[in-house]
């Protein structure tokens, strides 16, 4: 279940990062970076 949420969260993260980079909008990019780090932390603390 959590794995599926992490996996699906990559879609909005990618959209935010791509929008942030192409339109050089650091705020949107920063939200994307933080969401990505949260996804990584959740992955790290979740059981296999």
């Amino acid at each position, binding site marked *: 279940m959590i*794995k*599926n949420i*992490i*996996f699906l969260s*990559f879609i909005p*993260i*990618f959209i935010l*990062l*791509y929008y*942030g*980079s*192409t339109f*050089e909008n*650091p705020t949107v*990019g*920063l939200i*994307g*970076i933080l969401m*990505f*780090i949260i996804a*990584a*932390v959740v*992955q*790290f603390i979740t059981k*296999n």
Partner: protein
Amino acid sequence: MELLLSVTPLIILLFCLLALKMSTGKSGALAVVSAIVIAYLFFGIDANGLTIAMSKGMSLALYVLLIIWAAVFLYQLVYDFKAIDVINKNIILFIKEPFIQFLLLSWLFSSVLQGIAGFGVPVVIVVPILIHLGFDRLSSVAAVLLGHSWSVSFGSMGSSFFTIFLVTNLDQQSIGYAMAIFDFAAMIMMGFSVCYIYGGWEYVKKGFKYIIPTSLVMIVVMFTVIYLNLVSLVGLLTAISGLITMYTLYILREKPEKPKELYKDKLNLGQALAPYISIITLSLLFQIFKLGKYALSFKYPGFVTDLGFQVQAESAYAKIKIFGHPAPIILMSVVIGILIYKKANIWNNEKFKNVVHKTITKCTKTSISLVFLITMALVMMDSGMTNALALNVANLTGGLYPLFAPLFGILGSFITGSNTNSNVIFGKFQMSVATALGVNAFVMAGLQSISGSIGVSLGPTTILMASSASGLNGQESKIYRKVLKPVLLTAAILGIINYILLVVIKINIGGAL
């Protein structure tokens, strides 16, 4: 200090994978966060640069994930509709001895597939076949990963070969000759590695009579094809010549009984093989007709870090060609498979739902790990960490650098999972070091490409594809442990050859620059 910081994410990744035996997902998660923090705090990349690097990482992950999802879907379809049984029983009819099946499939047949398609296709096709022939899962994965790695640089219709030529701007044919010298050693080493995985030193001795003559034929063919300047076909023709030579040697030596008729069940061999034949045919057709203009790609601006590391703008990054990327080709082959199964009256909607379900379950975990790892690679590259690592090692080793040069090719493939990307990162760097040391740049460029080629067997993307295809999800650390030693041993041999060629003999390939 800079060297230590730049290598930290890789040390964390390897330590978690190999020492703590964590899954790739967890190891990758920790490694990517460490790379982001180090890049931001010590390598002067700002939020904008990080956004671009991470977005690039995710778009590259999309490129690879499409291949993995399509390949696992095809494998699951072929498996659940029992086509793989028909293929395996026919292989046994033609090659009765298990050792020859193992060596021929993992060392040569996978290399033929690499010559055509590449991008992990050999792994996802050959590993399941070996497992269903009754070989141990881990051994099958390790054998295919290593077995086809010598052919990566000249494979995929020459894509890595083109890259090393493009980034170094050296004469293509001369780089090809230099690559062939190193590839001769790599193909022999990988053949023996497969034998060792099969049954230890006893089978290394047994394999001698097949590996040496086959490699001799392959190297002659390789030099001839390079001489004829058929650069896209070097890998394919070399591997085919090897496959024919080894099978002929087997027939002449073992004199196996000829099969009276082919095995068939509800499907015959042609029908069972149809999706795979379609992959090969479509890959060749799309190469010939050059339909690469229909593509999806991403655009990224360039930037400069606070430490002055420049990242170029990308106008078409991670280009997914509709008629060229392996995923659409594999999906077209899936459709062909479905049509054949329907015609043979073995189609079943419930089974198909099961195929879809299994594909999603298998691929989700792999996808998460892959996104973390590729993003880590891009953060390291775009922040200048990879560059700093390479420069520091070159300064540290000085005149002995040729001995250590293969490590960069392997490192590039290890962090990016691609020989082409390894050549992009380190091709120019290796050439610059060669020029600074006053040694032949063609040899160094050739070494870079071939060491990148064998390094692909350590690439997280390839390992994850292999674990998905073999059902060893979550056991990637076991695969790494099995593959690491042969790769490092081969790297040491390539380093020694490089040192002898450049420093002892002072070989001159391609003339002075």
